[in-house]
Structures are given as C-alpha cells and as structure tokens.
C-alpha cells in the first residue's frame, strides 16, 4: 500500500461516487432521462481494474460511467452525454449506456447483456494477429455469465489462447434475480476454471482488484492465453433509477455497506498513517468543484442539431454512394 497509489485510487473512486450522486440528482430534476445505472458501491472494481489495465482495449456493459472516468474520460463529456448534449462523448446520441472512446481504447457501454464478450474476443484476435500483446479486458455482470455469448467467448478465447481478461462483477443480482436462483452456484469463477486460470477476489478492496488484474495482465502479456477474474461486490442503489431494489434485505445491504470501498480505503490509510487527513479533505473539495463544473458544462451545452439525426448512420464515403 503506497501513499501515491492510495491517493490515486481514492481520488478516482470518490470522483466516480460523486459523479454518480450528481447524476442521480440531475435525473431527479429531469435533466437526465432513460436508463441510468449507477455504480455506487462498486467503485473499487472500476478503478482497480482500469488503473492496472492501462494499455490494451476495454469492452464493457452499460454500467460504465466510473469505468470511463477511471479510464481517463473527462467527467464533463460523460455528464454532457447523460444530458443528451452535443458536447457529450457520443454527441448525445448514445446516452448513459453508450460511452465510447477509441482514443482511450474504450469500447464501452454495450446495453445487450453479454454482447460485449464476443466482440472482445474478436478484438483480442486482431491484436494478436498484429503482434500486440497488451490484450483485451472484457468486463460484465454476474447476469451476463448465464448467456450463450459468455460461454462461446470463454471457449474460443481458450481454444485460440487469446490475450484477454474476462472480469465479472458479481454483485449477486441481475435486476431483481439473485444469481443463485438461476445458476447452479454463486461463485462464478467455477464457470471458467476448466478453460483458463480463474480466481475469485474481494471486489470491495481496490488494492486486491488492482493486484489481481496486474497478475492477470502479466499472464496474458506472456502469451499464455486468457484469464478469468470474479470480483465479489455490491451495488448500493437499485439496478437503475426505475428499480427500488426491494428484493434485497436490509441486513444484506448493511453488511455490504460496512464494506464500502471508499470509506474503508480512507480509514485504513489513516490508521496506518500512510496518508494524512488533509489529503482526503482537500481531495473531496477538489472533487466537489470538478463535479459542479461537469454539471454546469452539461447544463450549458447546446443540444445536437436536428441534422444530426441522419449523420453517423454510415461513414461519410458510404453516404455518398448511397445518396
């Protein structure tokens, strides 16, 4: 546990948390609409993974704001996307579930559960063919491990020895369905262990997430094939804004809230005397300002022009052929 790491992790996790809280607030005010899936409670996964996996390509699902932030996407352009503005990362056409930035090798926000895995495998194949070994990182939820796309993907990745990390955020629930009701076991690393090294880790501990992904990264970079990580975590909010999460017991919520990844990191660092209290206070203040600026930027940005309805369907060259 190095001070510099604690500082980076804390900053990004807290930035992510405050971003989500602000998004929730703006949703209530009617400035954000559609489906909004919050990451609150799961920040250690988003930040730990993206800090460790800093080079290759990332494929993810719709619960991706904090992953995008930790990957280096500006909170301003994410917030603007949530507001449906022209300045958003997808020009307001994608919304919360569809954040993409090839410059960050971030192929984010796929809203079809499990849909990201086959594409991630294809990308890993392309990179391997090009002689690249930074690999691909494919992340999804527990619910995604019951679909054909997941099983087909781990099969091929292993058969072709591709450089890819499969990472499952096991928060136990797919909307209101507990994983154990529809899967023969809740420890999901069992699903991949005949195909590749497969581990289960504590996803509420950012250092554990970071270290495990570092290990997996080294493994895939050495050309040994794919690697599977299951992180146990919990979402403190409902599945999306339209879900009140009533299917979970108060006791269960309490147990996981006590494992809050941000509070625990801070308290541990303070107790061990690695980082002073001032750092946390100042960081919190800095983050407040950053988030306020992001909301202001989104609120003051213009909407896309009506002409944008028909752009980006085909690439420019193809449009000329068609019309």
């Amino acid at each position, binding site marked *: 546990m190095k001070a510099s790491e604690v500082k980076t992790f804390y900053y990004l996790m807290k930035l992510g948390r405050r971003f989500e809280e602000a998004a929730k607030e703006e949703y209530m005010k009617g400035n954000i*609409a*559609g*489906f909004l899936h919050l990451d609150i409670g799961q920040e250690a996964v988003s930040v730990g993974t993206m800090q460790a996996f800093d080079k290759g390509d990332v494929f993810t699902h719709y619960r991706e704001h904090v992953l995008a932030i930790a990957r280096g996407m500006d909170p301003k352009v994410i917030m603007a*996307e949530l507001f*449906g*503005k022209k300045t958003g990362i*997808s020009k*307001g*056409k*994608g*919304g919360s*579930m*569809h954040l993409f930035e090839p410059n960050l090798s971030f192929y984010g926000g*796929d*809203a*079809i*559960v*499990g849909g990201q895995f086959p594409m991630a495998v294809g990308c890993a194949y392309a990179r391997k063919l090009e002689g690249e070994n930074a690999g691909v990182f494919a992340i999804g939820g527990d*619910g*995604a491990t*019951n*679909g*054909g*796309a997941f099983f087909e993907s781990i099969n091929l990745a292993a058969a072709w020895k591709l450089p890819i990390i499969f990472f499952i955020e096991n928060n136990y629930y*797919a*909307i*209101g*369905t507990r994983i154990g*009701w*529809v*899967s023969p076991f809740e420890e999901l690393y069992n699903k991949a262990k005949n195909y590749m090294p497969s581990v289960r880790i504590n996803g509420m501990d950012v250092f554990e997430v970071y270290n495990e992904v570092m290990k997996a990264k080294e493994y895939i970079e050495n050309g040994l094939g794919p690697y599977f990580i299951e992180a146990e975590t919990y979402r403190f909010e409902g599945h999306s804004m339209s879900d009140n999460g009533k*299917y979970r017991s108060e006791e269960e919520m309490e147990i996981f809230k006590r494992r809050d990844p941000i509070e625990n990191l801070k308290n541990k660092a303070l107790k061990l005397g690695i980082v002073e209290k001032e750092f946390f206070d100042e960081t919190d203040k800095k983050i407040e300002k950053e988030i306020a600026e992001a909301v202001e930027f989104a609120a003051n940005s213009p*909407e*896309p022009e*009506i002409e*944008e*309805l*028909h752009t980006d*369907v085909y690439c420019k060259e193809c449009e000329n052929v068609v019309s």
Partner: protein
Amino acid sequence: MLYREALNRAIDEAMEKDESVVILGEDVGRYGGSYRVSEGLISKYGEKRVIDTPIAELSIVGNAIGMAIGGLRPIAEIMTENFSLLAFDQIINHASKLRYMSGGKITLPLTIRMAGGVSRQLAAQHSENYETMLSSVPGLYVLCASNATYAYHALKWAIFSNDPVIFLEHELLYPVDMEFREVKDFNPFKAEIVKEGKDLTIVTYFKMRYDVIEAEKELAKAGIDAEIIDLNSLRPIDIETIAKSIKKTKKCVIVEEDHKTGGMGAEIAAQIMENCFYDLDAPILRIAGEDVPIPYNRKLELASIPTPDKIVTKILKWKAENGI
C-alpha cells in the same frame, strides 16, 4: 383498466383455467415482471409455473418450445424486443417451422410476449420495433396490442391457440388507464375501425393509434373526415377491412413507428396495390420512423418517429401535392 392489468388478467385467468399454462422469463416471478405484467402470479401459482430464468433469451424461447412439445402451454416473456434478437434462431428456425417440417405432427401451443417500441430516451439498443421481421415469417402469428380490450382477449386467445404466436406489447402503454370491454366471439385477426370517416383512410397499429387519434382532431379542424383503422394483427393483415374502407374513401395513409424501409407499411401498401388499385384516387402516403437507429437525445428521438404534429403536416402536404 391499465393495459398491464389487462395482460395480467388474461394470464391469470388462463393459468387458473388450465394447469398446463406456465410463464417463463427474466424477473417474471419473485420480482413481479419488469413491467409488472406478471405481478402476483408467483404467489398464486408457485415457482413451478411462474419461472424465473437467467438472462438467456435463446434458452427462454427454446425451452418454451420444448415445454410446448412436452405438453405445456408456455408463455415466454422477452423483457424487450431488442433482446428477442438473441432468440431469433429459436423463433424462426424452430418455433415457426416445426409443424411444417414434421408434416403437421408437432403442435406448438406457444406464446412469445415481448415489450417493444420507442419508449422514452432508452437509445438504440432498447428502442426497436421488429414486427416487420417477425411478420415476414410463415408459421407465426403476430399480434400487436394497442389497447386493454384487445390485449386481454388477444392474449387469452394466443395462450390457448395451438400455434406459435408473437404477442407485441408497447412499453409506453403499460401504465395507461384504458376503457375495457368484454367481447363475445372475439377474433384476434380482425382490425378495428377506431373512427369512421369518408375522406381518407388512415391505417395504423400499436402505439401510433394514439398519435393518429390526436392528429385526427387537427385534420377535422381542417375539414378532413378521416377513417382510422387499427390493424391489431400484423400476420395476417385484415386486408378486407382496409379494402372496404378504401372503396369508400379512395385514399390511404399508413402510419407506423418502425423504420420506413422494408417496414410494415411497405407490406400493407403492396397488399393494397394488389387488392384495391382501381379504388385509389391518390398514391398511398407512408408516414414512418426515419431510417436511423433511435437516438438518446429527446429532440432527435422525437424527430426519428412520427408524432401527431408530423402526421398532420405530412397529410396536409400530400393532399395539396395531389390536388385532393
């Protein structure tokens, strides 16, 4: 009665009446259904008949086909139409063809319900209309519920039908309170004349019914007396009702939410050309969704689908252009 309550009542009564009726899908049981259609059923009929499934649409439909072969009357729920694409292989390669391929020996009493349509800012992967694709497949019936009365009767009919039925529900309608009537001798394939008129026929279906009703008020102010037909069933299409209306009005406008190219409107227009070409005084006008994926931004989203305003403007322009 709320639209979703009408659906719930149809399923409830079917399950009560016949023990072989089961419902399966994501979150249909303990959660009560993501749109609350299956609310309360698990406590009444138990986990064995109200079955929570994993997120695996291919399996949901495939398993339902197997259940039907095995003697049950399954209702498979697909959470939203986009996800039905994962099950298209089971729907099209298996459900629609088993009867034919087996020389009529296999019967599939199977209902596949899905929520669809453009809702509110759910973006491209949660906003589709795939009725056109589904309606092009022989061996499937495709029903499209726009109101509580039809939803209730048609769903009950579908559950007890011995053929596979695709049953489409519009997401924006679930919480809407609607008039409800008991209908004797219900025919799911019969189109409904929502409003009689003599100047032009507007053929529509699904949620567009309501946009057309809105638009009609404006058209009336402009002195146009439009007849409105809600198709209800998309495979088969009740061309008889349409033809009768066109004989009277001599003009036809088709309004649909789906993309224009290759959409239902294209099929309806083609059937009209085959059946009542000589009754028409003007070219058919098609008002449809734009040929783009559905955008998130609300302004763009509204620009991508017909709205009452657009329907009125387009009809008035078409009238002027054709001198009618």
